[in-house]
């Protein structure tokens, strides 16, 4: 199966490495980063492109744009793994639309287009007879969307809640462990590369809220936007508050929660018993899905990272490969 990759940052390179390391039967015929692109119907030399990128050079030619790759390359699946833009989802949204209109399947890790335009993109994919898959948009390596769509098919999901942001979970874990202040724990998270220079997106709960919107719209058939999420971040938390929770064998975690029937969409710090399965350490993610037939299920795993997120993308790619007729 031939794929075109848009975005050659952490996730894109993770996919490239996995393709090189494993026999996945995937040929890369198009590749673009923000400054350059390559189109080669015979298959791009991925190892060479990785070496160029890691040497600080563009991955391809400055004359080839991402839009060129979408419109002109020969591929079966567009792998859209550029950074998230939550304001309008662009330029990823336009690229996804372009590929779907060309009857190409799309796999993305980009939260923007899925959170903002899921119903439209789903209909566009259906009208063109192709798949649109987005496992990597929520909780990195955890196959949450697959689990809910396939494994738990037939169940009614009554509640979905958990730790959706590894950066916040790391900060709260460290505040509880060593009585660090929020600022100290954030500085440590930055040093370790777990937090961005501008951490707003994570610590104000925006990232977790976007994931809730994706799950609500794509899995729970709700019609919500980011503005519908009641959202409180972790920036005001104090070490004393964590100690007060600790005194009662509890701790504090940033919890995202969707209760479809009650219309609850909420991201907020919550007091959680330390023995609760959602209390995970460090940058892990954990999500509990409450269902009518299967009962409660809790998924725990890495919510971010190059290879971990690539795992979710590759899962989607192989899902499509096993279900489509090649060379269509």
């Amino acid at each position, binding site marked *: 199966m031939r794929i075109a990759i848009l975005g050659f940052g952490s996730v894109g390179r993770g996919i490239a490495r996995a393709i090189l390391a494993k026999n996945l039967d995937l040929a890369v015929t198009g590749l673009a980063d923000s400054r350059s692109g390559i189109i080669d119907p015979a298959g791009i030399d991925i190892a060479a492109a990785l070496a160029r990128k890691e040497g600080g050079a563009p991955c391809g030619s400055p004359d080839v744009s991402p839009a060129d790759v979408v419109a002109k390359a020969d591929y079966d699946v567009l792998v859209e793994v550029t950074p998230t833009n939550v304001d309008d989802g662009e330029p990823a949204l336009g690229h996804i639309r372009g590929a779907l209109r060309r009857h190409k399947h799309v796999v993305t890790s980009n939260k923007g287009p899925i959170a903002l335009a899921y119903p439209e993109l789903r209909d566009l994919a259906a009208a063109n007879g192709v798949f649109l898959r987005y496992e990597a948009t929520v909780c990195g390596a955890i196959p949450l969307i697959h689990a809910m769509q396939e494994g738990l098919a037939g169940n009614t999901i009554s509640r979905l*809640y958990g730790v959706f942001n590894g950066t916040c979970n790391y900060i709260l874990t460290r505040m509880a462990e060593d009585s660090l202040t929020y600022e100290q724990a954030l500085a440590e998270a930055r040093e370790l590369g777990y937090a961005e220079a501008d951490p707003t997106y994570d610590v104000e709960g925006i990232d977790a809220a976007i994931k809730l919107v994706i799950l609500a719209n794509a899995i729970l058939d709700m019609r919500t936007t980011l503005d519908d999420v009641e959202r*409180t971040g972790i920036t*005001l*938390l*104090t070490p*004393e*508050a964590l*100690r*007060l*929770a600790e*005194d*009662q064998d*509890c701790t*504090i*975690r940033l*919890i995202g929660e969707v209760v479809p029937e009650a219309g609850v969409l909420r991201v*907020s*710090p*919550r*007091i*959680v*018993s330390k023995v*609760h399965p*959602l209390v995970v350490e460090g940058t892990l993610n954990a999500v509990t899905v409450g269902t009518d037939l299967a009962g409660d299920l809790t998924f725990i795993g890495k919510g971010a990272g190059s290879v971990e997120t690539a795992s979710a993308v590759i899962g989607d790619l192989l899902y499509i490969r096993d279900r489509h007729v090649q060379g269509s």
Partner: protein
Amino acid sequence: MKLEMRDQPGQLVAALQPISAVGGNIIAVIHQRETPAATEVLDVQIVLELPEGRLEKLLELLREQGVNVVRIGEQRLLYECTLITIGHLMHTDLSDTVDRIDTTGSAEVTDLSLAMPAINAPSSARITIRSTTREEMKKAIRILRSVAEQKDLLIIEPLEGV
């Protein structure tokens, strides 16, 4: 509650059995033979916890056993919820914050732990609220949330309900 029953062997067991049948928990049984009026009648006081909404069923079962319920004492505050609040708690009148819940009459703050690390720095408090019913607890939490909004305080609620 105070019960009246015939002073015969097996009657006390007959009176207690319905309590476990409705899922209640007996905390104390006080059994005194000092009622001078009738020797054939026994007065028993029972302190118990009952799941919400089961009182009517218990009274019905007791009547079937021939037990007369003389008096039902005050309902204690059985629902408990602990929250943490962060902000300028003293400057925004912590006792008023507590009063707003206590004045509901059906929920009250029963425990408060306060940590004030430094002057002008936000303080943190753990507040335990008790109420008679789950509904009253939800109402108390709603009040606390609206007070927090007015006073610019952060409220951290428990993940699992009351």
